[in-house]
């Protein structure tokens, strides 16, 4: 079975940029990517091995197809091709419900649903979500996500507020990004959070921690590396070595990312763990 990922999000959120990163960073993995329009893809001419109307084969083994009128039809044609792919990624249209597209993988025996990634434009999403014509479409997409990429975070007036607002709209973990620059590995093997489609197979729980005093960076890293059965961790932390900054901590699988979230404005440091049975190692006081 071939893992199947859907990248959704409203027009202009950065879906294509994310796809470009995926193709550039394929590193030996053979992706087949279904897009609405080649023109937007940043395909290096030197890397094109063959160009055949609706498809472009890349020298690194990846293949890009335009979707045309019927996504299901294009996808099934792709599965009939002799080449095998390690992963199929579909770019949903700007108004599509990505959860519906991911349903294809539930019905088609050759595919395995890997997850729905929804890219969100941090600078515009709240305005879009309030728009009387497209607001419901935008929110439906967000709720369908298994992973939210909060893109263009650098362009948001108040990144923390957008992040907080987004976390109230959906259960999925949120990854902040600029120019859709996210580690490729975290995009795959997602757990089920999206509300449309079927229920998650396993119930997960969330545990939260709070510290009023600044936290030692090394200590927190050690604690996170010690965790068991934690699928995701996220938090806003005041580190002892940067007490006037909001440090945004993300853990996806074994990967830990720490980003800067602006000046410290919170009451306390908070960390939320998600997993079937999250067990946190103890935080050693320095």
């Amino acid at each position, binding site marked *: 079975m071939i893992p199947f990922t859907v990248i959704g999000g409203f027009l202009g959120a950065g879906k294509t940029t994310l796809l470009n990163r995926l193709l550039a960073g394929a590193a030996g993995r053979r992706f087949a990517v279904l897009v609405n329009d080649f*023109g937007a893809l940043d395909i290096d001419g030197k890397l094109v091995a063959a160009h055949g109307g609706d498809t472009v084969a890349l020298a690194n083994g990846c293949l890009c197809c335009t979707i*045309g*009128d019927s996504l299901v039809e294009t996808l099934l044609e792709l599965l009939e091709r002799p080449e095998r792919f390690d992963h199929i990624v579909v770019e949903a249209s700007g108004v599509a419900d990505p*959860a*519906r597209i991911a*349903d294809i993988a*539930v*019905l088609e025996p050759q595919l395995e649903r890997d997850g729905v990634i929804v890219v969100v434009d941090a600078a515009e999403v709240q305005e879009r979500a309030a728009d009387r*014509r*497209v607001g419901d479409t935008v929110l439906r997409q967000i709720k369908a996500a298994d992973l939210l990429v909060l893109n263009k975070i650098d362009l948001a007036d108040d990144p923390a507020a957008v992040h907080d607002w987004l976390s109230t709209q959906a259960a999925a973990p949120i990854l902040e990004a600029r120019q859709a620059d996210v580690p490729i590995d975290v995009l795959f093997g997602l757990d089920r959070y999206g509300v449309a489609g079927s229920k998650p197979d396993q119930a997960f729980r969330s545990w939260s921690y709070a510290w009023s005093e600044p936290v030692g960076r090394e200590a927190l890293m050690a604690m996170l590396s010690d965790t068991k059965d934690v699928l995701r961790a996220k938090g806003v932390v005041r580190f002892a070595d940067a007490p006037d900054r909001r440090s945004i901590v993300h853990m996806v699988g074994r990967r830990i990312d720490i980003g800067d979230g602006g000046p410290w404005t919170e009451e306390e440091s908070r960390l939320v763990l998600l997993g079937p049975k999250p067990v946190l190692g103890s935080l050693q006081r320095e």
Partner: protein
Amino acid sequence: MSTIVYAARRIVTMNPDNPFATHVAVRDGRILGAGTLESLSGWGRFDLDEQFRDKVILPGFVEGHSHAYEGGVWKFPYVGFFERTSPDGKRSPGLKSIDEVVAALQVYEKTMPKDGSTLFAWGFDPIYFTGRRMNLGDLDKVSTERPVLVLHSNFHVLNVNTPVFARANITRHTNVHGIVKDDKGEPTGELQENTAKYLAYKAVGIDLSGLLSDEPATWGFARVAQLAGVTTATDLHNTLPDSTVLAYEKATASVDFPLRLLPAFAALAMPPDDGIARVRALRKKNSERLRYGLVKMVTDGSIQGLSARMRWPGYYDGTPNGVWNVGPDEIDRILLAYHRAGFQVHIHTNGDEASEVAIESVERALATAPRWDHRHTLQHAQMADAGQFRRMKALGMCANLFANHIFYWGDVHYARTMGPERAERMDACGTALGLGVPFAIHCDAPVTPIGPLFTAWCAVNRLTASGRVLGTAERISVADALRAITLGAAYTLKLDEELGSIDVGKRADFAILDEDPLAVPPEKLKDVPVWGTMVGGRIFQAPRT
């Protein structure tokens, strides 16, 4: 260069200078003139043909919104609620309950070879049935050996039997949107989404779009149109793959093909630059009976399918707003591209929010790239109100209103989707006429049967299937309705200088009727029998049953 003068009981020309005539002269497939035998005799030698002397001749009907699939569906049995006529003129009776549908399918099944081949039927319309919905058990009574698929009249929902689920691997554990399940979690046999439907088709080896648009299907469409007096019809949304283009080319190459076929390119099938190049290339293939050049965009879903985009206060029964097929920003971008390239764009808008977005999109396109006489047309515009019609008028837009909806779904709109007030002004022909918005009325075949006289009847009487009059203020006169199915529709297709009225120099395209639609009581308009048509001077008598 022979000239034939046809005598008729009456000729209704749609030419205000000369509204009625008794004779029409035809030369080289075109109209030489209409008048009396005496007034036409100055054109020189002619043969007098009196075979229509008891008939009434109108301009050939122009169907501005239909789909050539109408010709292909008749390869399969029809199981709808309303009686319907096939291309060979045979009437299929309406089926009034699930049991009647099952019984009809059982009879049909017995005629099929015993090889496990698939039984596909279409037109199932349970909207007026009371009680339970069709399920697996019903269609298992038809066969447990062969796959049985029954497509609903809305072309969105599909019912199947157990063998289809077995082949498509659909079980109670298949958690996919659109696979309907009962209280106990068992799939009922109803599939409501494209993904589930497509995979069911694939599992049983049906290529529906291929089957519905091959050369025989194209002929079937022309014949079913001919039966209704139609001489020009659109195929108003087609991705136009090479196989379809070839089928259209082959079928229309024959002088016996009784229709001018106008395929509209589905603009969302490819990026605009590629689409524009595609339509330009297709235009080079244009002939007397095949005309490319129309472009179609679909913005929202359907009202009865609860997928139309509505303005506040939304659906009467509280259903959340429908879905965009393409979002407002994209509508702007795509429309502007085709607008700049000089094309006329037909924009599907069912809900009033979709109409609003489309009107504003045309307004922006005109501000960016001013253009005269573009005639961009809202297709359906079923919920457009007077304000929207005023804007359409100001912008030079046309409307093609879905008058048949009043009969087929008016009761549902009244009770469930729109509520009384908005249902009473749906498909507002009276408003369009009063405000001077050029308009046509249509059937959207195969969604409803092709039959302009029926469509005109709907616009004139505004009766629903249950007999309710829906909005007397929006009724129009028989004369105005007849204009809408001839010259009015031709105008929305930019063919009004060539077709749509009986006038010197226009194509000799006629609808030949047994009775005079202006003389029968308005409530009988739909019952006026069609004898046949003339297309480019060639006579096509409808088969009689």
